[in-house]
């Protein structure tokens, strides 16, 4: 071994030597600070639920996305980075209120969400559809056709179905309460088992 090799080997050891500090803790401290200073344009956390883990993401305006594991959390975060801001950080405290309301809902103790919503991911017609959907009371159901009517276009049930299928904030915007005319379940972003489970929580038989 030449002197140069020996020197290089010793310097390279610095690249793998165990460290006394804790990079993971430093990174957590950083994310908290960034959120506190308002630099996390999108803050997210995973929330446990009877339906499996959920990903909740909020901007300073409000809840912007709630996703099921089936949606692929990595893919969801990439799309948030592309569509809203790449300053996406895991900051669980920013989602505390969301977590509390969801827990209450799943415990059957909340019939109405009072969370601020950011509609950034929704177009104008989609927003009318989702706002009409938010008007369907807990434990009640409606049809694509009725929702289309309330969104201002009774003949647009297909577009309404698409808008509901693209609902970025399921559960909180209760698209699970919209069924086919005649009682068929229709579709659901998280799969029909989840739609059935949500309706069961609300005491709706399917």
């Amino acid at each position: 071994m030449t002197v140069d090799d020996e020197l290089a080997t010793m310097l390279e050891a610095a690249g793998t030597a165990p460290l006394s500090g804790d990079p993971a803790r430093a990174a957590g401290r950083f994310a908290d600070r960034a959120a506190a200073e308002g630099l996390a344009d999108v803050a997210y956390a995973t929330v446990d639920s009877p339906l499996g883990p959920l990903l909740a993401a909020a901007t300073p305006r409000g809840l912007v996305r709630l996703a099921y594991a089936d949606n692929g959390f990595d893919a969801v975060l990439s799309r948030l980075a592309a569509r809203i801001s790449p300053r996406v950080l895991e900051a669980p405290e920013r989602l505390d209120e969301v977590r509390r309301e969801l827990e209450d809902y799943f415990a059957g103790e909340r019939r109405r969400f009072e969370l601020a919503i950011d509609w950034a991911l929704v177009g104008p017609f989609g927003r009318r559809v989702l706002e009409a959907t938010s008007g369907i009371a807990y434990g009640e159901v409606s049809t694509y056709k009725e929702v289309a009517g309330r969104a201002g276009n009774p003949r647009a049930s297909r577009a309404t179905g698409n808008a509901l299928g693209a609902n970025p904030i399921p559960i909180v915007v209760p698209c699970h309460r919209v069924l086919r005319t005649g009682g068929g379940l229709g579709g659901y972003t998280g799969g029909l088992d989840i739609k059935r489970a949500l309706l069961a929580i609300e005491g709706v038989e399917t």
Partner: protein
Amino acid sequence: MSRATAGARSHGVELPPFQRFLDMHRDTVYRYLVFAAGPQEADDAFQETFMAALRAYPGLRSAENLRGWILTIAHNKAIDAARARGRRPVPVPEAPEPREPSAASAVPTPEGVDSELWSRVRELPPKQRGAVLLRFVGDLEHAQIARALDCSEEAARRSLHVGLQRLREEWTR
């Protein structure tokens, strides 16, 4: 959501979510700072490094070479940290082991690393030290080191070469 997404993707650079970028590079950056700023300073320098990166992140023109970019910031924050403490490394005088250790060697060395060699690295002039650290701890290529040190690739190679030469002289003495 997929339809709406397609439009927004067509312009600008597609950067990974910052959290993913942080998770990917945090260990390297932390390690770099332990060696460049010292274990005691590493944590604060880490905060400064990623805060600066977060501020600048949405303005990035390219999603390539993010590793070189974050290590460049870390390099500068390590220099800031040293400056803030008035702790610029000074050449060790040719004298028998001084009773008072030099500022550089007073910094504890991470375990598993040759402390003698390590204090020598810390006593190199900033550019040479930066070049050696970015090469061996940051595992960067010469072009990336040049960008981090804000000099030509030729100058970066020279800094690295001279830095290593000095270490070798100390080493073989």
